[in-house]
């Protein structure tokens, strides 16, 4: 197999395997989901450009987190003037601690699937609609006959409920 073909293939495999973790890592450091998507796009291009420097036996996720951290800090310096973002030193701490804690955070994300399944269908549909990539909360509130702040309040309650459920799931699955 030609080596470039091979490298494409290997990169796609590595990136696909770790994309959810990298996405979640970036998301934890920036204010909005759309910001996280923008940054992840940059990160993926940088990863691809630097992939030849990555050692095949290395830890792809750790390598990707390092690059993502750098990209996030650059983005914060750039956007921090006209957006409300966290302080750089706080973000650095969050990045280091959350990278170290990724396996637990990953299990939390996995537990969400079970917890979503436990929500009544109507609620599940509404929360999924609110989290659609291009969802507009104003439109959704209107369609549901709620006020915007009412819908935010409702989302807050659902997230709380899900967080409690995830904590219970984690306790159950923790080896004693």
């Amino acid at each position, binding site marked *: 197999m030609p080596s470039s073909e091979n490298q494409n293939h290997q990169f796609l495999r590595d990136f*696909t395997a770790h994309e*959810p973790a990298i996405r979640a890592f970036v998301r934890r450091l920036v204010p909005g989901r759309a910001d996280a998507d923008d940054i992840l796009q940059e990160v993926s291009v940088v990863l691809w450009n630097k992939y030849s420097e990555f050692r095949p036996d290395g830890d792809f996720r750790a390598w990707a987190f390092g690059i993502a951290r750098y990209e996030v800090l650059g983005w914060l310096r750039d956007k921090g003037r006209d957006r409300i973002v966290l302080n750089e030193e*706080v973000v650095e701490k969050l990045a280091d601690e959350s990278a170290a804690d990724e396996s637990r955070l990953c299990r939390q994300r996995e537990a969400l699937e079970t917890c979503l399944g436990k929500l009544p269908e109507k609620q599940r549909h509404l929360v999924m609609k609110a989290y659609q990539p291009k969802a507009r909360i104003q439109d959704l509130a209107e369609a549901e006959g709620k006020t915007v702040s009412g819908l935010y309040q409702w989302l807050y309650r659902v997230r709380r409920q899900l967080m409690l459920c995830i904590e219970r799931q984690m306790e159950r699955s923790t080896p004693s």
Partner: protein
Amino acid sequence: MKPELEPIVQHYLDGSISPEEARRLNEELATDQEARRRFTEWLNLDSALAEAAAGWSLPAEKVPQKPRFTRFHFGIAAAAVLVIFLTVLPWRSHSPATVVSIAGVPEWTMGLKIGTKEYHIDEGSIELQTREGARIAIEAPAVFRFPSSMRMEVTRGRVAADVPPAAKGFTLVTPRGEAIDLGTRFGVDVVEGGDSEIHVFEGEVIAKNRHDEGGKSLRQGDAIALRTETSAIRNLRSSAFIHPDEVPGLTAGLAAGQRGRAGDRVDKLRLDPSLIALLDFEKQIPHQGNFRVVQGRWPGSKAPEFVEENDHLKLDAGADREWPLLTLAAWVRLDKLGAPYQSLLHTDDWDENKKGQVHWMVTRHMTMRLALRGNTLADTAEESEGYPDSRTSVLPEQGRWVHLAAVYDSTAKTVRFYLNGRFDKQTLLETAHPARLGPAQIGNWNRNDRRLSGRVDELLLLGRAMSDQEIRELFEAGNPYHNHQL
């Protein structure tokens, strides 16, 4: 985290945080590690919800059948596909699986994100990787969808899954039941109409018939057929499945123009004055017999597959004369090891009065044998069973196409064997009758069960002795993989 901080985090998540609240949040997070831990969990939940939502579609939502995405053009050909993939990520993210290899599926691209809709592939093979890292090879014709990254519904087609611990519980659903992974490699084969088989290559799988309450544990080497009312034990057919590791090799073979090269070689052979028979099955299989029609070495091409006890393909060629020289060659994909005899080609019967009848097979030792009625080995021959056998196993790698060839020369009293184009050995004969062909079966014998478990493609009978060089070229031209050597 202090309780009064939680509403502030919620405002941060909603994008409605005030400068005053942000100052407070920064202060707390800078000094309190427990607050950072809790904050991280909230953001993590938000990320997981977005991921779940993107993979979720309204039950009634109508979706286009073909994969669809924006195309850009970039100069560097090798990287172009990746750049396309990377630049449109936000619109196609969070999908259950990504295409990581494609061998001959029109309109599909590497890096394509699989959504939750139904997909059809009419020819070729693809390899996908799910979010949890399960690798899945699908061979056409196939119809499938992913309700989630842990669940794949297969309405039609052959699917082999290589499931890492992180994806344990991955489930393949067929119209007749389902296979739940317990950390393993396994496959399902769904034929038209929905009957399906589950094959376990490694590890353990729970097989459930639709009507079953519980499930049945299948372990390495087990296979089961799920039908409307019943389940039945089957023999494992691991080579019946294109495995995830095989797809990149097939992709590279197609990219290197192997299909065209094979076609040119076949066209040339058709003009060979010594040609007795050449079955390339390219578009159809016009021959008589019992067999399944499956994909051959090339996307959309055909090949006979022998599965049931009496399966065979009839061939009646070359009966008009005796053949002092004979070359036999075929591409095969063998499923089962160690059956006493698996027929590549057997002339009907094995008659004392028909000296020179040809029985070409794979033995229980996984060697290739070329037996001719009435022939005897020279004293110097090393074979213990009285027939010329190859030295090397015909299965250098299981679950792949291999090229087998034997060249018989009754005047020189030799049989020469070749595996994947490479000369294996020569056996000297004491008595050597000219070969006698005529009514025969490929993949079985009319007298006894000698079924070849697997597929046969491009079977060649030539009334002359091909040279080592010619056999090598035949292999190289017809090789579906790129640079594949023994």
